[in-house]
């Protein structure tokens, strides 16, 4: 009993000393809370985003921080679950007393955090959560840097209108929040273009075998196959399309999966000539984009992708707002964020209201194509790094 009591006393004293010493030591920094999935099934992206945040932080602080004060990032793990994400943010707000929140990978977690941020009046800059609803609630403390899921297909639509002029199309999408909303908005675009939609089909992510559905697609012989998939499903879809010898005029990927290096590695030759909509690749014409890509590669010895750029840009946007904010109180930072007009590696950032959305960053989308194992920006024409290859060569005629 006695040792136990001693232990208890020690622990209590220790806990008190933690509380006592922690506060003054850190008051010099500006605290930014970052909630990301650092464990669990989404951890791979959480990791890329955390590295990018860290990279931006080191750069900003090396230049002297903001108004002579350094920024401190406090990372919290949401494990990919909304209720845990909420625990994390409660802690950030009530214990760490952060002045700004950012991060938010999955839509479910981001949505949970937005309500909380609004209630507590702490500005929250959403990094990745792409559900349209996030900026449709009129929350004055919520900003978003990445475009909502429904806007991803815009460049594809103009490409179809001006170049391809397809008559028939098929949409395959993964049954997630992102897949559902972006395929729905693409369906609307197709209707406006007068393209006949032969099939719109959802599948569960990480499916083993796409052959049954692809067989059906083959029998319909569409001009366009539009797929919203994450990287491994994307590779499998293309591999199996090749195996089944499906030859539409073009394959278009509607999201991130098709632009990642892993897609090319896994789909191998089946990746060639595949188009994809994208927000960002290292070849887009934004100052700092290629720079960020190379710096990341050099520092972490691994590839980065657009999620990382979003994170990297996010911290720069926050630093910019802090620089302009009257004081470092959350409400002043909010006002500063609202009047953001800056350029980042992820593109120009400005939070505007349109349609149902408020405080949403609008970005143009691009179209890229895999050509001989390299990802080239092909559309819009004025930013293209290479000409597009269209129509796609049938599989059997390829070398």
């Amino acid at each position, binding site marked *: 009993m006695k040792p136990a009591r001693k232990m208890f006393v020690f622990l209590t004293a220790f806990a008190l000393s*933690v509380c006592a010493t*922690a506060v003054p*030591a850190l008051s010099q920094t500006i605290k930014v809370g970052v909630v990301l999935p*650092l*464990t*669990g099934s989404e951890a791979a992206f959480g990791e890329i985003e955390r590295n990018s945040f860290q990279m931006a932080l080191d750069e900003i602080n090396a230049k002297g921080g903001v108004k002579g004060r350094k920024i401190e990032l406090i990372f*919290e*793990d949401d*494990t990919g*679950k*909304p*209720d*845990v994400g*909420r*625990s*994390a943010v*409660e*802690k950030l*707000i*009530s*214990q760490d007393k952060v002045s700004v929140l950012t991060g938010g990978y999955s*839509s*479910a977690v981001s*949505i*949970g955090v937005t*309500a909380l941020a609004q*209630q507590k009046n702490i500005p929250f800059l959403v990094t990745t959560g792409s*559900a*349209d*609803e996030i900026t449709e*609630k009129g929350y004055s403390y919520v900003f978003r840097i990445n475009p909502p899921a429904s806007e991803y297909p815009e460049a594809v639509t103009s490409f179809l209108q001006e170049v391809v002029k397809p008559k028939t199309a098929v949409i395959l999408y993964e*049954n*997630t*929040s992102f*897949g*559902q*909303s972006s395929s729905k908005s693409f369906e609307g675009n197709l209707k406006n273009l007068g393209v006949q939609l032969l099939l719109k089909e*959802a599948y*569960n992510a990480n499916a083993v075998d796409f052959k049954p559905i692809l067989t059906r697609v083959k029998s319909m012989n569409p001009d366009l196959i539009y797929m919203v998939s994450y990287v491994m499903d994307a590779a499998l879809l293309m591999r199996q399309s090749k195996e089944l010898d499906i030859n539409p005029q073009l394959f278009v990927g509607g999201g991130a999966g098709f632009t990642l290096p892993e897609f090319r590695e896994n789909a191998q030759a089946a990746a060639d000539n595949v188009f994809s909509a994208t927000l960002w690749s290292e070849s887009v014409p934004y100052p700092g984009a290629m720079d960020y890509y190379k710096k990341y590669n050099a520092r972490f010895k691994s590839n980065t992708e657009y999620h990382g750029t979003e994170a990297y840009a996010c911290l720069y946007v926050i630093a910019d707002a802090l620089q302009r904010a009257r004081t470092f109180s959350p409400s002043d930072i909010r006002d500063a964020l609202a009047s953001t007009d800056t350029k980042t590696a992820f593109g120009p950032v400005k939070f505007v209201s349109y349609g149902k959305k408020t405080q949403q960053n609008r970005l143009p989308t691009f179209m890229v194509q895999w050509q001989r194992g390299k990802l080239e920006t092909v559309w819009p024409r004025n930013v293209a790094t290479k000409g597009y290859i269209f129509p796609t060569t049938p599989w059997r005629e390829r070398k």
Partner: protein
Amino acid sequence: MKKNLYPLIFLLALIVLPLLLRQEYYQHLIILFMMWVIIGSAWNLLAGYTGRVSFGHAAFFGSGAYAAGLLTYHYAISPWWGMVTGGLLATAVAFPFGWITFRLRGAYFALATLALNEVLKDAAKIAEPLTNGMVGILIMPTFSSKLPYYYIILFMMVLTILCMRLTVHSKLGYYFISIREDQEAAESMGINTTRYKMISLCIGTFWTGLAGAFYMNYMGFIDPSVVFSLQDLSIAAVLVGIVGGVGTIYGPAVGAFIMIAVQEFFRSGFFGLFKYFADKTGSSAFTTVSEFVKTAHTLGFGLLVIFVILLLPNGIVGDWPKIKRKVFRIKPEN
């Protein structure tokens, strides 16, 4: 009287706690804990007392959550009405399901519940016009403070535990236990086993559905993969029951506490303890350990489950006498 003393002290503490502990972070954790007590107790009535293990309690939790969410989404009816409908819908799902599957023995019933879980999850994804599919349902939370939610869930938890106690100590409870111990014998004594299994299922799922509806109200957002999650809800409910102790009234409460505590302990690196050491000593070893610990929360819980099943097969509460005995025996040697 003595038997009720500890629960009453504990209840009083829970009532007073949010007034002393102003940090909403802890209030949030306690809210989650109390929600899990309800889910665990409800699961326990069916599994621990009636001997029918459910591996798909998320099916009922999700039904409850969707009942509340859909009312708001389609008819703009306050989701608090969903508290009642949530429980009822969960029971309505459970009823025909139990009717069909209760003739299955042992593990087959468990597997059937698992299947129900998966079917409902996919159905909620596919029925997009009704459920909004994977985009999910988003509602405005009613209160901006945590306190109303805190006392609502506290009230619900007390009701659940009272309901469990009344049920278990009534005639029903003896029927349940006799079914668990020996179904044939129970039948030969003239107990209509299907009927009593149904009653146990309905009570259990009602409370689970209620917890689901509360989740909708509290979190303000649901989608099929969150509220029908096999791993995070169905399996977690089983583990809460096992760790705490099946077939005991307060076992699920202990299990829920341990689950939430372990998760948060690991996730935050022992509440920042390691980070404190790292900052104090400037040693990178602590930073490494901290990273290590933070990624291990599920692993930690998994190991705990294995440990408990091996050494305390009846859970912490169920094997409390054993723990006490062991501790007492060791003590004189100290």
